[in-house]
């Protein structure tokens, strides 16, 4: 028999200490959730990639454009349904710190190549109709409340400056929401034709070209075959291309981060280690203070394991509570981090997987921390215990 009633009493006996231990556990679990969520978010694009799309880009550089003449040649490859041009615009909205991505795209095929994109305000028809029309992601609309459907979005062209130095002006035709991590909700899309036309008429000085082509494949087509055919088509130049699956394309951006995920991992390890020590510390204190109590328990005839079980139960109770609180805080603060890190870590979210892992780790910490004190308590002889100072 084990006197379980003693567990809550012990916790209440030192309210400040219980609270502080709970606090450090909560903080640790929150930090783990945060770091884990950042890493998950970085990899989210890869995980949610579609296999019905491939990306054609220059094999030389992310910054080298492909000739416009490549489009019909790609569309002629067997298995290709349609293509969509994407060109990085790099415009500045009011100030450099307001950075967000803008792409000039084929407006006719953007939504058909990306069925994940859904218009939540305004309409696609309007976007199709307006030559200077654009659509913006819902997070952008939240970040800049002054930008709404029907408003004008002025952008200063850093890569595509207008001849007079004035800003480009786009009409916001709609706000979209993407339910997949491979298109984020912080982007602005506008008509490629408008960009091209401006270059043709000389109002913009830049080289015409396309950053990349998104290619939609027929269902059941072997991706590798299409990739090989497209790569071979342009292997002699003028620009060699690299055709990748969407997953591979997203992975390229993750590998560019280099050691950042490793760094996050080591910090997570350090946090865990520090907190483990803190909880061990508390449990040792608790055990030491209760030496006399445990002596009494044993003298009363309770088994050796009673004392040990009490300590383990106390630690587990604390760690489960800390875990739940930490995960809870991480969940509650997620929208704030989404707002703050919208452009750096798009798609930050505390997934249920993250929450589960964090909880398990918290319980593990509690279990490990109580092992040594529990073992010592079990080995304690009543006579020693009475002699010990409280």
């Amino acid at each position: 028999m084990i006197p379980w009633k003693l567990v809550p009493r012990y916790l209440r006996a030192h309210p400040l200490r219980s609270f502080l231990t709970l606090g450090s556990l909560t903080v640790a679990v929150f930090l783990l959730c945060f770091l884990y969520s950042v890493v998950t978010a970085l990899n989210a694009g890869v995980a949610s990639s579609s296999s019905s799309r491939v990306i054609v880009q220059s094999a030389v550089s992310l910054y080298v454009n492909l000739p416009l003449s490549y489009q019909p040649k790609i569309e002629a490859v067997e298995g290709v349904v349609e293509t969509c041009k994407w060109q990085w615009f790099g415009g500045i909205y009011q100030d450099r710190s307001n950075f967000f991505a803008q792409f000039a795209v084929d407006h006719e095929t953007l939504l058909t190549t990306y069925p994940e994109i859904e218009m939540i305000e305004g309409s696609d028809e309007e976007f199709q109709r307006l030559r200077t029309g654009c659509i913006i992601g819902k997070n952008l609309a939240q970040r800049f409340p002054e930008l709404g459907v029907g408003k004008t979005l002025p952008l200063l062209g850093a890569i595509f400056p207008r001849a007079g130095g004035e800003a480009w002006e786009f009409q916001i035709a709609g706000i979209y929401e993407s339910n997949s991590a491979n298109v984020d909700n912080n982007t602005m899309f506008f008509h490629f034709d408008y960009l091209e036309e401006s270059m043709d008429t000389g109002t913009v000085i830049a080289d015409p070209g396309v950053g990349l082509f998104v290619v939609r494949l027929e269902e059941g087509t072997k991706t590798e075959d299409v990739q090989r055919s497209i790569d071979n088509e342009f292997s002699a130049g003028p620009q060699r291309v690299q055709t990748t699956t969407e997953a591979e394309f997203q992975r390229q951006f993750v590998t560019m981060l280099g050691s950042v995920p490793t760094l996050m991992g080591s910090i997570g390890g350090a946090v865990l280690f520090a907190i483990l020590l803190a909880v061990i510390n508390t449990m040792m204190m608790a055990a030491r203070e209760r030496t006399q109590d445990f002596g009494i328990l044993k003298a009363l005839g309770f088994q050796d394991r009673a004392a040990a079980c009490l300590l383990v139960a106390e630690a587990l109770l604390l760690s489960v509570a800390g875990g739940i609180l930490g995960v809870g805080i991480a969940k509650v603060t997620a929208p704030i981090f989404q707002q703050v890190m919208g452009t750096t870590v798009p798609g930050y979210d505390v997934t249920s997987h993250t929450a589960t892992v964090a909880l398990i780790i918290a319980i593990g910490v509690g279990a490990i921390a109580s092992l040594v004190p529990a073992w010592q308590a079990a080995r304690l002889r009543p006579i020693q215990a009475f002699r010990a100072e409280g």
Partner: protein
Amino acid sequence: MKLPPLRYNFRSLLVRRATTILTVISIGATVAVLAGIQSLQKGFLSLFDESGREGVAVFLRPGAGSEGESAFTRDRADILMKTLPEIASGPDGLPLASGELFLAVRMPKVDGGETNVPIRGVQTKSFDITGDLLTLESGRRFEAGTDEIIVGRKLLGRILGAAQDDVIVLNTTPFRVVGVFDYDGPFNSEIWGDADRLQEALKRRIYSRVIATLKPGVDIAALSARLENHKEVPAKVLSEKEYLSTQTGFLSGILNVLAYVLGGVMGIAAIFTGTNTMLAALSSRTKEIGILLALGFRPWSVFLSFLMEAMLLGLIGGAVGCLLVLPLSGIETGTTNFDTFTEIAFAFQVTPTILGNAVLFAMLLGIIGGSWPAYRAARMRPSAVIRRG
């Protein structure tokens, strides 16, 4: 006012060895994380902040934030280089100015995946402008007008096929690596070749920027203002130092946020642990405190004595944190510099300032953690305390 001897605090920490060690390590881990991120940031920033020169001007297209965004046609670059009176001349009487093509090219990383390696097509004057700062570690400089390149030292071991005598195919043209160079700055992660040949191979017949050594005493801001609205060649001009300092904001900002968020949050946890430890110390030393008070030590002295002990705990924790972080010094790592979107390699730089701040932070954690228990200790009544034991 007399304080109980410091030796008493030392001994108290020693007696409670296990608790002391655990607390020390948890404070140590906190400051180690903070100091680690700061030394990473320091290593990154020093590449940019310390290598830029005031007397060298960087010309960009107005509106461009970095050379990757900037472009001059060859004719316009020539006008800039040959007609500006502010540009100094070399021993041969020609202006010390050079047009440079900059492009980030895809290269395979040694540990898998691809990254964007900056490649710089330079004219021979770039070497004169760089002067002794650029040294060759092996091989020789590329021959002007040939398909030869030299690579920065930091690319070795990070990028596949970028060693001496390797051949790198750019689009469809093979280039041979004829030398490895060292430069104490971001150039160290770049590949350099002949501007004309690279423009041809990469099908980019432009210069991304023009750099020039200015005559002494030239006011760059005035020059920039004059060229901003120039009819033929509008340009914005920055000193190289200023230019490089604008290329670090994003990554440095991320590291900053990371350092403060993690330091702050882990710090809170460390304060909790510290308070716990001191509370435990307090409860097991109730009798001693009573004796101290009975001996005539003032409550204020007891308070300070306890605070001192907590600070000592923090100090030791800080020292442990420093020891944890020191081995990181010099370790090379790399990531993408988001301002240029190219791979940059840099080393952790553990500086005395960072270590000093770490120790101060650790002591602060100790003091905050110890203040409540110290206050409690000071408020005890000797008679009550001694009777209790």
